[in-house]
Structures are given as C-alpha cells and as structure tokens.
C-alpha cells in the first residue's frame, strides 16, 4: 500500500480577519483506509493552438473509484489560460461542461469518477495559440 499525501494552504486577507486554511490528506481508495496504488506519472504537454484535446481519457481510470487529478498551467501570464471541462468533445467558454479556467500558474486537484463514458473525459483547450504548457498527474486505485 502506497502513501500519498497532499497538503493545501490557502492564505487570504479578503476578510477583515486573516483566512488561513491548512489541510493535509492521504489519498485513499474509495471508502477504505488503504492508500491508492496507481498513477499516470507526472506528464506535461505544450500547446500552440486553441484546439480542445482530451487530456485524461475516461477509460484510464476505473469507474466508481476515488481517483484524483492534479493539473497546473505552468505559464506565468494570467491573461493566458486553459479551459478545463468534463466533456465528451470540447471545452469552450460558457459551455455547461466547463469546470473553469486555469490561468498562468494556477493549479487544481480534484476527485475524478472515471465512469466509462465520454462525458467523464477531462478536456482542455487553450484560449490562445501562444505557446502554453500544462502538467498533470492522475492518481487512482
């Protein structure tokens, strides 16, 4: 059994009092005390077109499990971003399947139900043809 931990720290002065969220989790199999044991490994891809592509294919995982996906826009320009969506085909502005945007330097870590259906593909699309790189890693049972 592998032990994989992820820690988040969120610090903010939005409120009139300091916000400081610190949480560490051990990634476990669904409803289990045992740690996840498989991973895609850390990958990265450079884009130079706005075409949407499937970054994580639904068949990479097993349905009904507690998989996780980490992604990060490795750029620094906040004007350039990736649309990230849970979709069969494309990510684009304002589609119902768009989860959100990863601007330069932004990262995300989400649970992922790898249901064997194209609607559970994770799709990304750059907003610009300027070179932009995304890195990602899938953790699964």
């Amino acid at each position, binding site marked *: 059994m*592998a032990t*994989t931990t*992820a820690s988040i720290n969120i610090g903010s002065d939005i409120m009139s009092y300091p916000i400081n969220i610190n949480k560490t989790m051990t990634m476990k199999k669904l*409803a289990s005390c045992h740690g996840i044991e498989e991973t895609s490994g850390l990958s990265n891809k450079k884009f130079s077109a706005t075409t949407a592509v499937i970054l994580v294919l639904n068949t990479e995982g097993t349905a009904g499990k507690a998989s996780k996906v980490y992604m990060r826009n490795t750029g620094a320009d906040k004007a350039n971003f990736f649309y990230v969506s*849970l979709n069969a085909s494309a990510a684009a502005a304002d589609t119902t399947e*768009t989860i959100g945007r990863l601007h330069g330097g932004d990262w995300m*870590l989400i649970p992922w139900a790898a249901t064997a259906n194209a609607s*559970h593909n994770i799709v990304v699309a750059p907003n610009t043809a300027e070179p932009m790189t995304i890195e990602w*890693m899938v953790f699964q049972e």
Partner: protein
Amino acid sequence: MATTTATVSISSSDLQPGNRLSINASSRLMKTGLTTGLELMEMGNASIQVGSPTEHSLAEALGTADSANWVYICNTSTDDTYNTEIVINETVLGYLNAGEWLWMPWNNGDTAAEIEVQAIGGTNTLEYAIFKSAWTLPTATA
C-alpha cells in the same frame, strides 16, 4: 486589493518505486486575466445526510460567466466508510473520502454549473470556501 494565495504539496515515497514524488505549486488568485486579486468569498461548514434529498446544493452558480472563481471543499468526516459525491453540471465529478479535499476553478456564471454534494455511507460534514470574482445575492422573496 486582496491577496489570496493557494499552495499545494503532493508527496509520496512509495507510489512510484525508485522515483520519489514531490510536487509543489503556488498560485495567487486573480480576477479573470487581470493583475488584481479576488475580493469576494464565502465559507462555511455543512452537514449532509444520506437520503432525501439525495443531492444537496452546496453552491448555486450566481456569478458571472467565464470569470475566475475557486472552490475548496473538504470532507471532514472521520469514518473511512463515509464519502461525499461531488457533482457539477449534473455530472459526477468524483468522490471525496473522509479527510480528503479538492481545489478547483469554477465557471459559476453558467446556471447549470451548480455544485451539488451527496453523502454516502453516513452523515458527512463538509467545510468549504469559495473565492469569487462577482457575487449577486438572490432576490429576496416578498
């Protein structure tokens, strides 16, 4: 202008034998494509029960389309058999086991993008924080 920073560290010494995993990243939360920080947020603690209603609305999508928003959710339950199903756009995103958290961007201007949660195994407790570009409160009922 507010400053909000989110940092992650992911590590494992044995997930990839012979290749110690260590990922570290940090990001400052900005308004869409700008250099000014997000200035609105809500946070809370919730208890969700198994059963009717099956899915509970954690956050309604009442923001601006294609704006920068961020969501943190943690299942603070301690029983390993309790987990929370996370739903967005009426599609199951995934499951948070007891003690697990998520951090994700959220396109909260699309009315279909409501974030829903469902308790599995028992009554789950969640803590959450949502950082927003814009926030329109619902109209009060007469």
